[in-house]
């Protein structure tokens, strides 16, 4: 199977021979940081473009088509505009927290990238509690949003931040519980183990009903966690103008905007890893010929394909559904999703103990 494993291993060995252990660690850290920043900027450009094209397609219009071929450089032009814009700080704002908030949101989005397995052996940090790490770190992002809303000294921002706080903290629960369903079946929190457990079939397609339920709950919960419509109450432009980032402009606004898309990518990547087999190719039972052809597609393509499919689904939600009201949003979580996912977890545990899974 063509994979990126050998490239990274060869590079590691070569660096070790040339420079010794400490220097290798430093060089690799810098390389990873550069790669992560590069990935983020490309993701920002690609995902914003994708969102605009998807929405245009759904809204019977063309979307950006002027800057560059098929409007591909529209996002670049927009980013350039945001960079040269003045980054305003309102008079009544808490200047330190106001300026810190977008970076916190962004940094947290970057940190979650660490345990993601892009391809076989192509992973920054194969930590043995990978899933727990992702769940734990992603709940910190609410602090950045609360900080932005509170420090702006704007009532709309405050309302948006309060909504966001209530929402993210609530939906963390069912997202976490649905993730645990897979962890129980796999018996490991390590990302690479979870991917490896799906070699004979993705969890979603293995036919376990609790996994299907967990998948649906996971998709709903991550949509809410990333503040996307129909759960975009933190921004809710028709109610709170722009919610927690009402007062932000220029690059600081761009960081929030970028963090939103990076977060979408990351949660979708987690979803693809847990439920859709990560970088594992699609296999159909004993159909060896078909399986062989599928094996020739590199793992990174599989991983990105699955992730982008989930991203498309989330975009599809945004451009189709109306927004929920705040009390309905919390009702949905506490009265429906949380009990269902708790019961589901019980079911999965029973299944795992009795050995009813395969």
């Amino acid at each position, binding site marked *: 199977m063509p994979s990126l494993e050998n490239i990274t291993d060869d590079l590691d060995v070569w660096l070790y021979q040339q420079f010794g252990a400490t220097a290798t660690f430093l060089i690799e850290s810098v390389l990873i940081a550069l790669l992560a920043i590069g990935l983020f900027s490309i993701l920002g450009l690609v995902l914003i473009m994708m969102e605009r094209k998807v*929405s245009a397609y*759904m*809204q*019977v*219009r063309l979307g950006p088509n002027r800057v560059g071929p098929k409007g591909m450089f529209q996002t670049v032009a927009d980013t350039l505009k945001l960079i040269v814009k003045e980054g305003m700080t309102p008079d009544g704002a808490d200047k330190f927290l106001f300026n810190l908030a977008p970076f916190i949101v962004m940094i947290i989005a970057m940190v979650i990238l660490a345990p993601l397995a892009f391809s076989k052996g192509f992973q920054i940090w194969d930590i043995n509690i990978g899933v727990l790490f992702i769940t734990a770190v992603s709940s910190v992002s609410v602090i950045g949003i609360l900080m932005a809303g509170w420090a702006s000294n704007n*009532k*709309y921002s405050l*309302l948006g931040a309060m*909504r966001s706080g209530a929402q993210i903290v609530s939906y963390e629960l069912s997202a976490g519980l649905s993730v645990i369903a897979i962890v129980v079946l796999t018996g490991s929190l390590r990302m690479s183990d979870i991917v490896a457990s799906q070699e004979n079939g993705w969890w979603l397609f293995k036919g376990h009903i609790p996994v299907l339920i967990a998948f649906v709950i996971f998709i709903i919960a991550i949509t809410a966690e990333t503040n996307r*419509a*129909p759960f*975009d*109450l933190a921004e*809710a*432009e*028709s*109610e*709170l*103008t722009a919610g927690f980032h009402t007062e932000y402009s220029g690059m600081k606004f761009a960081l929030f905007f970028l963090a939103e898309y990076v977060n979408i990518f990351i949660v979708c990547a987690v979803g693809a890893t847990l439920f859709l087999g990560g970088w594992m190719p699609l296999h159909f039972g004993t159909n060896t010929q078909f399986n062989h052809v599928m094996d020739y597609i590199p793992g990174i393509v599989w991983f990105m394909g699955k992730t982008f499919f989930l991203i498309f689904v989330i975009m599809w939600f945004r*451009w*189709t*559904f*109306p*927004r*929920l*009201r*705040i*009390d*309905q949003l919390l009702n949905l979580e506490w009265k429906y999703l949380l009990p269902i996912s708790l019961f589901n977890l019980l079911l999965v545990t029973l299944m795992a103990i009795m050995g009813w899974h395969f």
Partner: protein
Amino acid sequence: MYRETEILQEAVAGDLIINVGPQHPSTHGVLHLVITLNGETIKKVEPHLGYIHRSIEKMCESLTFRQFIYVTSKMDYLSSHINNHGCSLCVEKGLQIEVPERAQVIRVLMDELTRLASHQLWWGALGMDVGALTPFFHAFRERELINDIFEETCGTRLTMNYMVPGGVMADLHPNFQRRVHEFIKQFKQKFDEYDELLTDNIIFKNRMQGVGVLSAADAVSYGCTGPVARASGVSSDIRKLYPYEIYNKLQFDEVIETAGDCYSRYMVRMKEMRQSLSIIEQLIDQIPEGEYQAKTKAVLKLPKGEYYSRVETARGEFGVYIVSEGGTTPYRIKFRSPGFSNLSALDHMARGGKIGDLVAIMGSLDLVIPDIDR
């Protein structure tokens, strides 16, 4: 402007006072709402008007009976045909002008097309208010066809100034019938799509049902008309109650719902679109031949007296009250705009709801601010 102290007095500790508007995405114009909140719950809504006041009524006093009609297009810009129609009716009433049948049919056709276009825009804007952005574009796709039809016949797309005392300004464009047929065909196909996008959507239903309930008694006491009153079970269709032009010869139903919440206001307008479509279908192939404008004097002078006429716009009853001293210009003029009365019920409906409810209620009221603030 408002007296700030007055508002602050009523607030207690813990209340949040927010200015929604005059520049805000959901007020659809320069409406300014001062809302008092307790957390997310609305305690009070106070609309402040005057940001787009152009004193149209005073302006009309210095314009002749032919000229003042053109100003009224700018009041409710989504139903300029119907505004012009109401004013023309009032002048015709005073001068006892007999409008030719062809002109009457053209007027009714234009009114119903306007109603459709207005409801389409409302549908899209309501979708935006509750957070669905896609309906707006779908609604505009069909509304554009109506605007094209208007443009061909009237020369403009928004402020048509097409109806004049005695009939209409110009004859229909030769393409009119064909293009209306095309529009009907496309709209009928796409109307089911509208239902799929919003009407049957579970989130949309939850957002609208039981929200902003207005009882029939309250609707009457606030002077609500149009779809807002009809959603509360109050019969208020001027086309049925005081038929003008050829409305009494047409087959159509007055749509009445009884729940009085946002969803019934929504359903009233959705069903009204089908009724308007049926009116257009009844008339489009039977436009009688003849004059499109009655012979009138060059200078119109209304006899001394008071005149009132009313028409049904997409938002409710539009009344024109003219006091004439026998001159060439009105002595006093007063318009009864539907939006103003409907807006006055906003506070009553929004109290106790959430911020999201306020936006949904405003969307379901279908406010056009230049109509409220003349």
